[in-house]
Each structure stands twice: as C-alpha cells, then as structure tokens.
C-alpha cells in the first residue's frame, strides 16, 4: 500500500465557488481568490518592532509596518495586526523560507526568543476585491470608514465583515485584499456575491 | 372602563413600619402581601419617578415557572400559582392569559438541556412537555420548522400554564390592592441616603421629599439596587445591563403562544391588541441608560424573521430598554443584608416580571419575620461565599 495523495495539489476552501466569482476585467467589481500564499504570524515582545524591524528588513525586503498599515509593495508584504503582532505574506510555497527567515531574525529558537513566528499559511485564504464599486460593496458589511481621508492604499485593519473576522488590506485606489479564515471563507464569499448583486 | 380610583398619590408621612424602596411590580406586590397576609399596613412604597415606570413598564410580560433547579422551580412555581389566583385576589383584570410558553431547541445540546428541564419540572410538580418538531409545528404553525434552515427547530419545551399578562394592569391592580389596605404609594420621591444609628442600624431614609423614618427598609429597586447598597456600604454581586424590547404595530392574530429561543435570543408573543412583543438578549456592557445598542435589535430581528418568515413584513414600531440587575448565577438574591433593618430583593435579571407575586409574597414574609421565607432561603447572599450557587444560565451551549 503506498501513499495515494503524493504530490496532490492543495485545495482551496472556496474552490467549489470559483465558477461563481465575477472576475471580468473592467467590471465594476471583481472578486478573485489568491489561494495558498505563505503566511507567518509574528508576535514580538518588542511591540513597535524597533529592534526586530531592521533585523527582518533585509530578509523581507521591506520595513515593518506602522500601526494600521501594511509594508511591502509586492511579495512578501507584512500586515500590522496589532501591537507587536504581524502577518507576513509571501508567494505560495515559500512558507518554509519565510518562517525560517523570520525565526532567524527573531534571533533564537523558540526557547529564548523575543517573540514567536508561526506558520499559518493554511489558516486564511486571500480574496481580492477590486474595481470602482469595491468600496461600495464593502460598505454593505464593513463598519470601518474606508473613505480616502481615513483609509487608503497601504492601510490594513482587522475587523468584521459579514460576521466573519477579516484582515482588510487596501492595495490600490480601488483594490482590496480580504484575508479570511478558511472555515469562514465559504460564508464570506457567498455574502460578497450577494452584496455584489447590484454592481455586476 | 373606569371603576373609580385605583390608588391615591400620597404625600410622604413622617415614618412607617416598613419603607419599600421602589414601586415597581415587586415593590407593590411586597406592600400588598405585607398588608394582606401580615397585617402590616403602615407601609410606604417610594418611587423616584412614576409608579411602575421602570422595568415594569418595559418588560415583555412572559410568565413561566419551568426553571431547572429545584430551588428556582419552587419559587417561580409559587409565583405562577399566585398568578393563577391574582385576578380574583385583586378584583382586577390583569389580562392574564395562560397561552403556553414554548422554548425552542436548535441543536443537540439544546435538546438535552430541554429534556432535562422538562423531566425536572415534572418531578417538581411544574407542568412541562417536550415537543418534537412536528408537535412544535402543530402548536405554532407559522414557525419555520424546515430542517434545512441555519438554526433548525429540533424540538422544544412547552409549559401550557405559562403565558402573559398586561404589565400596567398588574402594577395598577397591585397598587389598588395595597392602597385599599392603607399602604402609602408615594411617587416622585427618590431615596438619596439612609439614616443610621451609631451601631449601623437603619432608622429611615433621606429622600428628595425629606426624611422618612422606617422600622424596616426593603430594597426593591431592580437595576438600581447597587446604587442603594453603595449608600449603605455593602456590596452586591450585581451588574446592571440594558435589556431591550420592541413592539410591532397592531396585527391580526398570527401567534397565540409565547415562543422563546435562547440560542438566537428571540422572545415573542402577540399581545391581546395584536402587537408582536419581542425581547432581545441583554447588552453586554453595564448601563443605567435605559437604552441599548441597535445591532442587538437587528440580530434579534434577523433571527426572528428566519424562525417566523411571516414576520418579514411586520414593522418595528417602538424599541426601548430597561435596566436588569444580573447576578453571577442568574438567580435572584432575597433576604436580610449585612445592615440591620435592611432587606434586599434583587438580581432577577430578565426573570422579574414572572416572579412579581411570588417575589412579593416571599419577600413580604421575609420582612415581616425578619428571616428568610423558606423558599427564599437558598437565595441568600451567603451562597456566593459557600459556593452553593443556583446556576440558571443553562448548560453552556458548547460541546465536543
């Protein structure tokens, strides 16, 4: 008897909804999934990452983000989740390197560290909501003020959307990322599809 | 409609054998039973606003006695039996309607909890039935009992003797009964302090209308009890929270049973005139503001529409909030206090209305004899020290 699943591809939590996602270029609003990114949750005793930032900077190719912000333009990028709490995100398949690099930057292994780094790549999936109506769609369930005066590209926040906890990350003038726990992803996507009804 | 004066709005006297602080349902019932059963008629009931204008005017009037633990079942059943004779006792139409109270179960832990409760109730002499989803549908045809909804109905406990009453009439009936027996009902009279002997015993209350001497003082102020206890220098394990409720416009009858769903926080009945009367879950934060947060209402209504699709077109006409005093074990506190001559009846949380006659009766006896009524004994303050709590939260809805 040999292992049967060898080399099997990962499967996204919303794979079954993929055909329903409106992803027409130029549409008023588009929704697509960016599945399987590498993700590491970092928790630092050093709440402002003043010591950690420079050490991780070189590896991450970006600084550590300020509160309420994201750092990094492409991959990897780092999201501020709370004081001393970050989510580093990188290309699919790079979790091992990301984790090792961050642990290295922490300066020690788990025994005597100044924080923790945990691979949570499969804990959340990333949805991309974009288009001129993206902000309007979010306003149907997101309680944050996403007006350019108070939010904007490079900002991120943990909040609630459709009764699910999400990390909301604005990447462009009309482009948002939603990082949602995989077990809630089906609900959130179905909710988004409903909220998008008037716009697509 | 009028049958003469219901009660007299009295000026405060110099002193009374018993001063009851709070002219809500419990305060009025306590006064009534003090006068009726113990011959203690030199009684004043002080109300800082208008009579029965607090939680009594704000509750959803559900009456039932199907509590889990023996001690609770005993006192609530005592209350229900008093309810059953109260209209005759008072000679006043309370619109008391034993239309039955149905508690829905939406998951397997709810079912276990419900069956446990029904069996305990029956052995305690409390009427109770377990209904399967078909029985539930027969009883309340407008309920959505489809197994495919998000919170399916897996059954329910039913207490046929449960029901509703008209809260204002209950207050006025008790006020009339007390007034007729010589009790002074004094409105717009706020207690601002207590006068005490050097030994600490209370001899009277300071009020917005002057000092009133008192042989005994009975606190009956629901959400404001902590404020009074603060004045007296003792602590109570109470937190005051907003509890919201709402009514619809008048609608033709669609619901003749009280339906409760703890899992989704929907409590609904249709009153005699036709309005749907609904209670929500309590707001999490402490508050004396008599208002809660609107999202609590939205969540409650969403759940209600799912349970009762026919409600989709009804309108929320009016929402409001009361202040409920919640104890750690969701059971009341009744009995003497650390302060001589002062008694307390509080911590009824969301259960106060249904307990009105029972609490009044047991509390009156406790005050009259300066010792807890047997039914009140388990509900003393000391239980928080000994650990003998009477935990009516219901089993935590979590598992495996």
């Amino acid at each position, binding site marked *: 008897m040999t292992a049967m699943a060898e080399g099997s591809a990962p499967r996204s939590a919303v794979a079954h909804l993929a055909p329903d996602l409106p992803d027409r270029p130029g549409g008023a609003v588009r929704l697509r999934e960016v599945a399987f990114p590498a993700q590491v949750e970092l928790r630092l005793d050093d709440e402002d990452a003043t010591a950690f930032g420079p050490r991780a900077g070189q590896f991450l190719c970006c600084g550590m983000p300020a509160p309420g912000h994201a750092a990094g333009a492409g991959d990897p990028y780092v999201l501020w989740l709370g004081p001393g709490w970050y989510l580093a995100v990188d290309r699919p398949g790079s979790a091992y390197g990301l984790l090792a690099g961050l642990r290295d930057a922490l300066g020690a292994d788990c025994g005597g560290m100044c924080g923790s780094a945990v691979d949570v790549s499969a804990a959340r999936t990333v949805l991309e909501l974009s288009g001129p109506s993206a902000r309007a769609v979010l306003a149907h369930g997101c309680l944050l003020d996403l007006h350019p005066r108070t939010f904007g590209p490079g900002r991120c926040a943990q909040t609630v959307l459709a009764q699910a906890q999400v990390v909301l990350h604005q990447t462009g003038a009309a482009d948002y990322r939603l990082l949602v726990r995989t077990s809630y992803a089906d609900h959130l996507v179905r909710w988004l599809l409903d909220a998008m009804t008037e716009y697509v | 409609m009028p049958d003469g004066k219901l009660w007299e709005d009295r000026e405060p006297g110099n002193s009374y054998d018993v001063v009851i602080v709070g002219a809500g349902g419990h305060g009025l019932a306590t006064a009534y039973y003090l006068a009726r059963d113990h011959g203690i008629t030199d009684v004043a009931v002080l109300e800082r606003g208008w009579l029965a204008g607090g939680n009594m005017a704000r509750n959803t009037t559900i009456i039932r006695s199907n509590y889990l633990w023996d001690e609770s079942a005993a006192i609530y059943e005592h209350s229900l039996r008093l309810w059953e004779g109260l209209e005759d006792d008072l000679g006043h139409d309370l619109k008391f309607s034993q239309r039955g109270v149905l508690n829905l179960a939406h998951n397997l832990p709810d079912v276990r909890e419900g069956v446990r409760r029904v069996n305990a109730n029956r052995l305690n002499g409390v009427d109770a039935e377990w209904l399967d989803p078909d029985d539930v549908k027969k009883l309340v045809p407008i309920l959505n009992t489809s197994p495919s909804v998000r919170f399916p109905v897996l059954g329910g406990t039913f207490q046929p003797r449960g029901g509703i009453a008209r809260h204002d009439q209950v207050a006025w009936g008790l006020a009339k009964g007390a007034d007729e027996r010589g009790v002074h009902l004094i409105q717009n009279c706020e207690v601002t302090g207590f006068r005490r002997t050097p030994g600490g015993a209370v001899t009277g209350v300071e009020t917005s209308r002057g000092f009133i001497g008192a042989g005994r003082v009975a606190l009956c102020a629901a959400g404001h009890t902590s404020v009074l206890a603060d004045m007296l220098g003792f602590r109570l394990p109470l937190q005051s929270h907003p509890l919201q409720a709402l009514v619809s*416009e008048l609608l033709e009858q669609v619901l003749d049973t009280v339906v409760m769903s703890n899992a989704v926080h929907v409590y609904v009945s249709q009153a005699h005139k036709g309005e749907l009367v609904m209670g929500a879950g309590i707001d999490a934060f402490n508050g004396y503001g008599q208002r809660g947060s609107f999202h609590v209402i939205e969540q409650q209504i969403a759940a209600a529409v799912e349970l009762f699709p026919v409600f989709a077109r009804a309108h929320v006409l009016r*929402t409001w909030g009361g202040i409920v005093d919640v104890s750690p074990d969701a059971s009341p506190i009744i009995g003497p206090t650390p302060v001589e001559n002062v008694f307390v009846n509080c911590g009824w949380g969301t259960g106060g209305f249904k307990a009105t006659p029972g609490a009044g009766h047991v509390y009156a006896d406790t005050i009259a004899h300066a010792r807890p009524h047997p039914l009140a004994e388990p509900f003393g303050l000391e239980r928080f020290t000994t650990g003998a709590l009477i935990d009516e939260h219901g089993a935590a809805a979590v598992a495996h």
Partner: protein
Amino acid sequence: MTGSFRTASGGTRIDRSRTLTFTFDGTTYTAHPGDTLASALLAHGVRVVAQGPYTGRPRGVYSTGAEEPNAFVQVESGPGEPMVRATRLEVHDGLRASSLSGRGRLVDAPDTGRYDKVYAHCDVLVIGAGTAGRAAALAAVAAGARVIVADDRPGIGIEASGELTVLPRTTVTGHYDHGYFVAVERRTDHLGDAAPARTARRRLWHVRARRVVLATGALERPVLFPDNDRPGIMLAGAAAAYVRRYGVLPGRRAVVFGAHDGALQAALDLLDAGVEIACVTDVRASTGPLGDRLRERGVTVLEGRAVTGTESGPDGILTDARIGGDIVPCDLLAVSGGWNPDLHLFTQAGGRTRWSAEHAAFIPGAPPRVPIDVVGSARGIPGEAAEHLPEGADGLVFVDLHRDATLAGVRDALQAGMTSNEHVKRYTTIGTGADQGRTSGVPASGALARLLGRAPGEIGTTTQRPPVEPIPFAVLAGRDRGDLLAPARRTPMHGWHEEHGALFEDVGEWKRPRYYPRPGESMDDAVLRECRTARARVAALDASTLGKIDVQGPDAAAFLDRIYTGRISTLAPGRCRYGVMCGTDGMIFDDGVAARLAPGRFHLTTTSGNAARVLDWLEEWLQTEWPELRVRCTSVTDQWAVVALAGPRSRDVLTALAPGLDVAAFPFMATREAEVAGLPARVFRISYSGELAYEINVPSWHGLALWEAVMAAGEPHGIAPYGTETMHVLRAEKGYIVAGQDTDGTVTPHDAGLGWAVKAAGGWVGHRSLHRPDTARADRKRLVGLRPRDPAVVLAEGAQLVAEPPPAEITHPVPMLGHVTSSYRGTVGSFALALLKGGDEREGETLYAVDSGRADAVTVTSPVHYDREGARRDGDG
C-alpha cells in the same frame, strides 16, 4: 380622467403629462406620477380610507406626511406590506391597496424582496432638506466637510461640488450613542413592477456622524372638538398642501378652525386655490392682520368661538360643522392648533424639550450631550396659540384618532388616580400607535394640563422612542437571511461528507458530520456499524473543528500550569497530556490536550465550540494579570485539518501512509512530525475512543487529500468514516466526558471523576474555589455510569434519577438525585453516564431514570463501560 377634485393646473409634485392606474378597495382609479395614495384618493373624492380600530367609525386622510393617524392601508401588490401610510405611499402603475381599521395583516407568501444595509460615515449629517437643512448642508460642504443629507421626500433638489451624499426617500429613524444614526431608504417601492429585480428594495443605513443638523421641521397639531374624526376633517396646513403640491382640492366648501395664525394662513391658501371658505373660526379673541385679510376677501371670520361638533351623512362623512348654535354646511373642516417642532431625534439622544408660550409648543431645551444643531422650524415657529378644551360636550372628542382614544378616556384616567402623563398614555393608549402619536401627544398633554389645572410645561410630553417611523422586520434583517443568517463554518472535507451522505450537526458555528447512513440504515444502525468498525477495524473522523492554539515562549509551561488544573511543565517535549480548564469558580469550562512540541512551544486543543473562548481566556490572563510572562498565543484552528484515525487497524493504515514514521516507537500520548500521504503532517497518538488511535494534522488545504488518502489506505482494512454521534458513543463507553454535555457549569474536575488531573498543590486559577464549603461537600453530584435494567431501553439524555418510581400524579416535588448526561446504545449495549448525588458511593445501587412519565430501573456503575484495563489503546495485535 384624473378625478373631479383635481384642479385644472398646478401641483408642484405631480407630473400631469402621465397617468397611472391603481386600485383601492377593489376600485380602479387614476393618478399622476408624484401622487401619494392619499392625494390620488382625495382627487377622486374618496373620503373614507380607514376605520377606527375600536369604534369602527369611518376615517379619512388627515395629513400629508408621517404624522398621519388615520390613513393606514394594506399594500397588496408587489411584495405587499401592512400598515402603510397612504400619505407616504407613492402611487405607481398597478398599485393595489386596501383600507384597514388600525390593524394590519401578515400574509403567508414569502417576502422575496432584496434588502440591504450600508455603513456610512460623515462629518455632518443633515436630517431634513427643507430650506434650513439645505442651507446647513451647503455651508458644511463648502467648509470641506463630508456631508450626508437625508429627507423622507422623493426629491431633494440639492447639488454641490464636494463630499455630498443625498438620500431622498430616506427617513432617519434613530439617533443612538456616539453619533450613530439609523435610516431607512425606500429605493424601488415607487417603481412598482418596473423595479429592477437586482436592486434592494430598501436599504438600512447606519451612519456615524461627527455632527448632526436637525432640520426636521414642525408638524401641525389639531384642536380638539366633539366628533372631530369624520372624513373631511384634516389639518389645515395639510389641506392647503394638497392643493399646492398635488393640485387636489380636499374639499369644495371649507370651514377652517384654528387656535393660531397657521389656520388663517391655510385659509388664505385654500381661498387662493379656489376653495370656498364657509367661515373661519378661531378660539382666540382676536385674529389680527391675517383675520383682516380674510375679511377683506369676504370671508366670515369668527373670533373667540370654537367648532363644537360636526354632522355627517349616513356614510359618516362630514356634512356640517357646528359652531355653537350655528350649523355650517361644509365638506372640509381644516383644523390647526399650532405647530410642534419635530424633535424626536433630539429627545432620543437625551435632549430635553421645554414649553414655550411664545411658540405655543415644546421647543428644544437642554440639548443632548452630542454635537447637534437644530435649525429652521424644528426650533419652533413663533406665534402664540390659544389652548382649547371642549367641555361637557356631546359626541366623542378623539385625542388619538389612530387608537380611537378619547378625551373621556383621559378624564377616566384622572378619575382612576393617574396624574403622570406616562400613566395616562398607558391607561388610554394615547400616543402608542403606529403613528407614534404625532398628532395626539401635545393635545393629550394640553388636555391633561387643563384638567389638572397645571401648565403644559409641568406635564411635559411622554418619551418618544425609536424608530421615528416603523421599520419592516425584513429591512432590519437585511441580507442576514437564509444561508447568510449566520456563518456556518466548513471543514476542508465538508464537500466529501456531503457527497457521502453525511447528516450534519451544528456544533457551535461548525457543521460536523453526525453520521453517514447507508441506504436503508436508521441512525441507530449507522452509528452502531460505525462504532463496531472503529472497535474492530478502523474508522476515521473529521476532527478539523477542534480548537487549536499554538503557545510559545520561555514562560509557556509556567503559564499553562496556572491555566490547566494539571501540571504541564513536567511534560517532556514530544509528549501530550490531557488537560482541564476551570473558571475562577472552580467549575470545568473546557478540556483538551496539551502537546509539548519543544521546550518553549505547545500545541493545545480545545473543544470545537469553545476555541475562541479559550483563546480569549488565555489572552485575558496574559495581558491583564501576568504581562510579565513571556508567552505568545496564536490560533491555528484553521491552519490544521485533522483526521482522527481510530481502531486496531489504524496503525496499519498509518504505516501505509507514512512509511517514514516509526510507528512502533510512537508511544501513547506522544506527537511526531511526519510525512503522511506525502503531506507534511503533525501526528498525535491520542485516543478519544479508547482504541489505538492517531490524530493526523495537515495544512487545511491538504485536508481533503489526506482524508481521501486515509479512506483509500484504509479500504483493505474495512475503514469507514464516522461522525460525532459515533465519536460520542465511543468516548462515553470509555467514560470520557464532553465539557458542556456531561458538565453544565456546576461541575468541578473532582465531580467529573477527573481529580487525577488536578494538581494537589493548587496554583491554578480556580483552585481556591474548590475549598469553599459547598464545593468541598462530600455528597456532590459525581459522574457515574448507568446500565438500564432492561437492556432494550436506551435512556433519554436529560432523564432525571430518583430513588423510587414516582407516582403517576405528582402532587409534591419528588427528590431528584441527578440526571442522565449521555446515553447511547453502543458496542457494550445500552449504557449511560450521569451526574448523581454522592455518586461515587452508589455503585451497584438501583435507581430510576424518569423521562416523559416513564421510570426505568437502572444500576449505578463505573463510568467506564468498555475496556477498564485500557488494553485497547495499543491495539489488538
């Protein structure tokens, strides 16, 4: 054909170029776009639009807006709606409506309309787009503010370059704490069948505003007189407005009755519109310049005189007004007692009103403690008005038309001893109706003041409560309906379970397979088959829902020693231990397994429904009590999919899947990193069934692959999937508890037979509670096992335990000794777990389990019904 009461021209709100048709009470009529149902019916001379709820007396349109007390109708076309004000209902082609008598109907047909919600933010929210509101909005926009203007009318002609959002047909219904407002926008109702299906009919707005401008205007109030409810009687300002806005004559010959200048102004307006004014009568002694103007135009103006009654034809419709001994024929009696600023949203936020004689109204007094501006006529319209109360008259004087409540009722309330207006409101029901008492509140206070001989300001007004206008339940539910009502959490293997016929159970927010019936199998059959498969061969459970928390840091072990009742710090890396968590009250609230992955790193599991609560609990202690502890907690519940593999053949299956794992050197209560089915996995050798068992964790996106691999590898061994029901049978046979099922918040670890998992030395958070007198009692309820005397009987979970079979008729409470917490027919036959008073001393006793009036004899046993020796955990080989 637009109705005989339509003027030849005019009407600022209607489009005369188009004609619509609608049906009211079965008759079809015409209207113009812009008409309300009320204006359209008046245009056709339809006077009776409702009946009093208790008197059954006919009632007509009384106002133009939200203050309408009479004209509530049932909309029958489209999605339908009960209790809609005809004065607010825009006519569209195909509208069907019918009259009501103060009580609506809920129809059975499902409401399939779309409803949504929006969360909005602004610097300034302007409520009301009249002159004052418009000016305030433009000024705010010009100052660079983000502004939202809401008005309940269809058109708001306001434009500005800047951050301006205009919401027509939007009623702000509530003013809540910290600048939070709720509003309802009616988006497509006025389009009828032409409404786009994809557009939400109505939208609930949640607006967080830094500042609010109340430009809500003022509402006219009536004067009281006998028989003041007949169709044909309406507010004077409204009568004039019907002419101006809709080109509709509310009557041809009017009597105008007032107590202030507004009535006189309305008389002039009506006169201009071509209505014959039979006479104007004012309770004031002098009508001043406006009276003179009316006289100049030939109108009879009576001063110091009141309408004292009305007459009607057999249809109940107004035919005459009585003014003392004079009978004046008329088909319109326009009344006005003054103007009440609409301060609903002012008082909702805690603002106080005060009586102003100069305005003859309650005007803004002490403001609420929020940034608020009240502008325009919401501040009050200056002008004195006379008080008027009919005395000892014949006929019914209605104070609240909507509730059919009369002045006699107010007098009765006073006779009953009521002096507070809140009592009078409750006694009479005045002001409690769907019209929110807009036309009745101030007259009621005025009447009460007069009857008590006090000033209106002393009486005050009753509390106005949100919402300002009734909100349909469906609007409040928004899109939280059906599948979207609440999240249902799915495991990565969910689809597989569905395809394989699983029936699901709700566990917290999760959907978990309960059992997998094969064709023809009952639940009992399926569960017993699954149990036997697990006991004899191998079976797999989707355990992905277990809560999982990664705990790291140099102080992690010390921290967990304080949180768990047992000792975690002595655990060697690579090993696992069962742990119980209690509250500070010493009662069990969760249990699970703590695995030490490295000296400073643990992987905890929690019950499925409790994961968030446990993580919150850990964070609370770390952040608020022991910030000096260097410990970091991370939820990894969603990171890992888990397959629990149980049964004597599980080792064979694992061996096949993980050739690199030395299963022989993998002891019980240990954990290993391994490649399983080619996937990176963390494997725990722990057992919740008593059998040889493993829990295989892989990244969630590989969960389905792992599951399928397990099923394939297990096929030669006869593997079967099993659900939560079988999981329960297996664990209960071993006497393992479920927190929340075999405990209920009143059970200590000792009560649950878990004293072995409690450190005697204490040091954990609830330890002290175990030494309280009641908690230390010897005769507390303890976990026991039960066997029904009749093996064919499966006890009900929730059955109560008693010493003797109770009598058929229970007259006195029967002492209860405990209750059945878990009961199943398992591989050991029928058995149960129970909490029983003094249970550990009762083994072998016979008791009775009572359920639904039936008492079954049971024998008290050990809670462990299966494999007491624990031999099975290493398999049968």
